[in-house]
């Protein structure tokens, strides 16, 4: 085992199933998700609300209350250790020290009654055998690292004295204070303005360089994904429908849902002449998920088999994986601007803004 230790991924999720027991029935929020992440890699999980991306992330740290949530199967391995088998007290050592998380709304995730400094020091004092003085110094250093001016003064302030961008910086400082191997960022920029968003994206890229932290970022903003991700996994109805390198996903997407996602955002510079191409319909009800492909009902290229059987994950050209019957050797060859190779150039038209 020690020979191929280097090749072992930092985080590996295998066939994860998570359901929520509700009065209406069993909501199958995550249905067989497999992911892996290397050291220092930025993996983006994209998808619409309700597709299970946040549930997947929260399950890594077992943050979903049980009941109603139930992990029904699968493995979550952190450097080979299965986190699902860990007890609550073992998990408490993982959270914050090995894997930490930041959330969408920095105001509700900070404690309004405690000074920012104390909130940052809490993690250090809990996980490391250090004195208060050392913890204080470390917290100041972290605040400086995330780009807050006058860190000593900031330590004494309360969250309400911070602006939205500063709060998110403080959250990141708090998450990274114990030098975790993985940072999970659940929609970290959604609540922020674009100018602040770009600062936070820059900060995450910079911290990845400095600290070699692996970052799992969850978002629905394709622009943010394009800026930050090394690899992308597209989720739909509790499953990963396509995953691959960021350039592959944007320039040579293979799944009709990914085509739809990319087409429904307006292209820069086209103005009012171009009509948007929405994905018609709504995602399926996950209490009664369809037995075939979950996207079949909204897919323009749907075939008979799509309603009948779930497609397997297949390796497609360019080193990426797709869950779609169109990849089957007997499937008709579909003409789409992404399959004809026009997609890439078309998107590059955005560079006029540079």
């Amino acid at each position, binding site marked *: 085992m020690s020979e191929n230790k280097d090749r072992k991924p930092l985080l590996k999720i295998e066939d994860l199933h998570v359901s929520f027991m509700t009065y209406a029935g069993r909501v199958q929020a995550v249905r067989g998700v497999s992911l892996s992440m290397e050291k220092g890699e930025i993996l983006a999980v994209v998808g*619409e609300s309700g597709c299970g991306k946040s549930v997947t992330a929260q399950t890594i740290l077992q943050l979903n209350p049980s009941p109603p949530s139930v992990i029904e199967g699968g493995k979550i391995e952190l450097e080979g250790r299965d986190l699902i088998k860990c007890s609550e007290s073992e998990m408490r050592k993982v959270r914050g020290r090995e894997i930490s998380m930041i959330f969408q709304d920095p105001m509700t995730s900070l404690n309004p009654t405690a000074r920012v400094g104390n909130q940052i020091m809490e993690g250090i004092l809990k996980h490391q055998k250090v004195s208060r003085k050392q913890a204080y110094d470390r917290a100041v250093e972290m605040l400086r690292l995330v780009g807050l001016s006058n860190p000593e003064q900031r330590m004494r302030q309360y969250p309400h004295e911070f602006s939205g961008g*500063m709060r998110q910086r403080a959250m990141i400082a708090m998450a990274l204070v114990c030098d975790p191997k993985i940072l999970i960022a659940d929609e970290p920029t959604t609540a922020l*303005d674009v100018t602040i968003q770009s*600062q936070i994206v820059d900060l995450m890229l910079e911290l990845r360089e400095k600290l070699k932290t692996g970052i799992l970022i969850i978002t629905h903003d394709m622009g943010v994904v*394009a800026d930050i991700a090394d690899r992308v996994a597209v989720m739909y109805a509790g499953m990963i429908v396509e995953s691959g390198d960021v350039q592959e996903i944007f320039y040579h997407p293979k799944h009709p849902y990914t085509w739809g996602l990319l087409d*429904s955002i*307006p292209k820069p510079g086209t103005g009012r002449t171009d009509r948007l191409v929405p994905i018609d319909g*709504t995602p399926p009800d996950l209490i009664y998920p369809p037995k075939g492909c979950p996207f079949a009902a909204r897919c323009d290229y749907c075939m008979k088999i799509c309603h009948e059987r779930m497609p397997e994950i297949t390796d497609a050209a360019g080193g990426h994986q797709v869950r779609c019957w169109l990849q089957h050797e007997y499937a008709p060859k579909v003409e789409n601007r992404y399959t004809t190779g026009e997609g890439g150039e078309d998107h*590059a038209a955005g560079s006029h*803004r540079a």
Partner: protein
Amino acid sequence: MLLEVTELKKYFPVGGGKMLRAVDSVTFGIEKGETLGLVGESGCGKSTLGRTIIGLYEPTGGRIVFDGQDVTRLKGKQRRQFTKNMQMIFQDPYASLNPRMTVADLVGEGLDIHKTYRAEARQKRIFELLDLVGLSQEHASRFPHEFSGGQRQRIGIARALAIEPKLIICDEPISALDVSIQAQVVNLLEDLQKELGLTYLFIAHDLAMVEHISDRIAVMYLGAMVELAPAGEVMTRPLHPYTRALLSAVPFADPVASRQRKRIKLEGDVPSPISILQGCKFQTRCPYCTEACKRQAPPLKEVEPGRYVACLNDQAIAAQ
């Protein structure tokens, strides 16, 4: 001009004799049948501007002229008469629909207030409206919680259309929706505009979407309008330093080009709208700030036909 706004001000008292200047002397107009996009970061006063125009807030100063009629301080019956012309679509389709009312009653509320349609005609009109926004007649007897976000926003649109307004103020109508659903709602708004000859004031922070839907774009910063120009011009050749910085921050769905784009980074945060700045509102963060900027607030002036910029150094910036 369908709507003309002149030096509109809306101040909120915040105690201690201080004033929060949410909208500070804004002047602009909207032509009939046009879509004016209004962008800016949170707290810049864009929503307050929309709400003041429609009369949800009483303006502190300035004038609002709609179709030749001064509507700044209408009261009572006159106000009610006027509201038929102007309606609003709100951001949050979950909070803006009364959960205890059926869709028919929500859509018909305006009809009841203005008594424009009664009895059978009312019912017919409601079905017509539901059809117009892509919902079906069976939806009429249901309650809001039975609908998805996109469908709820359609109900909100039907509600706004009920009394046949000329101008609709859309206050972030798509921000709470998923990307694929956003496109559905934007297409619907565009179709309705063509069909009914509507005029929109479209408030949003998603610049790509605003560029898509707008004929002209207005950019706000700290309660003031800093730039107003045709959509394509603003997006490709912004003149105000704030607009330039704002646009450069927007990532787009192209990993290579997006990572290569030149970014103008702004230092610091937006100053508080309570403190009163002498001169230009953008001076604390502007890379081109001069002494003159600190003395005098730049007026929104026409630098090219149809292009307005509030900056003293716009020529120097444009020359770059």
